[in-house]
């Protein structure tokens, strides 16, 4: 018996953070303007200390003006979607749950588009609308996914697929009202795109990200018990309704955050928590933080590949995650049906 300790969580997270850092340095090197790894590390260090005058002007503009904002956005989106996926899997008691598969991302995307049409310049409106869209979609899918008063795994997934296709149709309809100039960017965004919008204040988004992940993390020992069944968790003293509400709100918020800035990037919320379970076990106290960092690693990797495999052109990052995620989804589904 080797129970989980805070030291173990910290050491595993530190190792994953180191992997993420190396990946970020590698990713920062890629682009038309070449920079060595040493230059990048020194520039990052100087930036972290606020020594802006000490670094060459082109380093500053390439790293802090161009490449790092995109990577920072990727880290945010990856962490948000993976944690939301892990949360939805416990909340809905379904190992195949993922914001994209359940249609929650489409709900958030619809919210974002409506806010773009109705209030294009209001700060935070996109995020708020995406959250409302995600929140409402989970509620609808949850109720459609019930059979005889019980949540049914297959019915839930079908409800998610139907919701996603219905919401996509509404999105297509709304897109016809948008001028042709914006249409290509919108289509790219829908597939999942990390081109950062300079109007977005990343600090606010990171603040919300950390609060939402933190809230889900505080319920992680409750989620461990809820994986053995809600009724059993109640017997053991878990306040199931409170935990479900916290996870529901926070996972919807995380999905809304991610989709409002990067579109509907699929399968990260499915893929990453499963990989982390295979590596580190099913304990949610470890799964939530490792999924967050693992999600960041996955999206930064996917984005780096999306920028390089067809360079000088680039793919939407959602296409890369779907290429990797869809086969894994099929594999997990078949293993479960056996």
């Amino acid at each position, binding site marked *: *018996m080797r*129970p*989980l*300790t*805070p030291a173990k969580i910290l050491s595993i997270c530190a190792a994953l953070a180191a992997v993420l850092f190396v990946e970020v340095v590698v990713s920062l090197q890629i682009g038309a303007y070449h920079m060595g790894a040493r230059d990048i590390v020194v520039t990052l260090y100087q930036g972290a200390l606020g020594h802006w005058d000490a670094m060459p002007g082109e380093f500053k503009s390439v790293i802090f003006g161009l490449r790092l904002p995109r990577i920072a956005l990727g880290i945010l989106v990856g962490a948000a979607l993976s944690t939301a996926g892990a949360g939805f*899997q*416990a909340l809905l*008691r*379904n*190992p195949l749950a993922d914001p994209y598969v359940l249609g929650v991302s489409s709900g958030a995307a619809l919210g974002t588009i409506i806010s773009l049409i109705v209030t294009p310049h209001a700060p935070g409106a996109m995020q708020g609308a995406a959250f409302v869209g995600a929140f409402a979609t989970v509620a609808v899918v949850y109720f459609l996914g019930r059979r005889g008063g019980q949540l049914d795994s297959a019915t839930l997934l079908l409800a998610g697929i139907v919701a996603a296709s219905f919401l996509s149709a509404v999105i297509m309809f709304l897109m016809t009202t948008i001028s042709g100039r914006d249409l290509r960017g919108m289509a790219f965004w829908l597939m999942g795109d990390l081109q950062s919008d300079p109007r977005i204040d990343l600090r606010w988004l990171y603040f919300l990200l950390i609060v939402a992940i933190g809230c889900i993390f*505080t319920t*992680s*020992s409750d989620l*461990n*018990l809820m*994986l*053995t*069944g809600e*009724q*059993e968790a*109640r*017997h*053991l*003293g*878990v*306040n199931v309704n409170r935990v479900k509400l916290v996870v529901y709100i926070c996972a919807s918020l995380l999905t809304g955050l991610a989709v409002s800035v990067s579109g509907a990037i699929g399968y990260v919320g499915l893929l990453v928590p499963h990989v982390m*379970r295979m590596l580190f076990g*099913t*304990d949610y*106290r470890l799964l939530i933080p490792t999924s967050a960092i693992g999600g960041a690693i996955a999206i930064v990797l996917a984005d780096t590949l999306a920028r390089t495999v067809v360079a000088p052109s680039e793919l939407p990052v959602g296409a890369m995650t779907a290429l990797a995620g869809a086969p894994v989804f099929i594999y997990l589904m078949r293993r479960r049906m056996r």
Partner: protein
Amino acid sequence: MSTVAGNNPLSARATPPGAPDGLRLRVEQASYAYAATERSAPKFTLGPVSLEARERELVAILGPNASGKSTLLKLLAGLLKPLSGRVEVDGEEVSELELRTRAQRVALVAQESELLFPLRVWEYVLQGRYPYGKRLRFESEADCLLAGNALAQVGADELRDRWMDQLSGGEKQRVILARALAQQPSLLLLDEPTQHLDIGGKVELLRRLRKLADEHRYTVVVVTHELNLAAEFSDRIALMHKGKCLRMGTPAEVYERDVLQQVFEAPLEVEIRNSGRPRVMLGGNR
């Protein structure tokens, strides 16, 4: 008395000093009704039911399907709040206890435990320590010791590193029981624990529950369909019929031919064995 339980982690908690004569569970005229609204009549009504159970007692709740056994068990577990009457564990109304306090006093072993992701046996049993933990509930060495003791108590020590989904029905039942013991409850409730076991497994489980009550002072309440095993191992029996507790007493007092025939709608015969415990057989008019 409390020092005994404090020193022996294998035993149930001590009965509180105020409780008369080791009384652990007291149900007084408790009733419950499902789906009772202003406009619709209740689908099922239970009670009023009264029963008591003391330290070291094993009580069996018997009755045909839909007689109210499981509803009664949920009342005892505090999962349902009685519409009238009281259900007290250690002198306190159980449905009003704070969730974790309740889980420290009452453990309910459900019929089945369906895991979403694979779990090792020791991880599963450690979950029984949840009601005692703080936020995030990192388990201490004492928790591990108690979980280990609980596994040893049900004879499942060698299973600790196995995966839950690779256990046989009997092994799984023992591990589920071990998790309940890790809660260190005073009242142990079991909902049809013998359902998926063969006859050997059924006898072994009841024998184990008897031993837990005798040697470790648990109060055990079992819902079961096994008339003969209940007669053999329990101190008292509550016989349920159409939402009412028809009889409550020792097996010999409750097992009357006419009563059993009426309740189970089957030609049952009862004989009293040399041990003084009754045995139920199928009668001639089949």
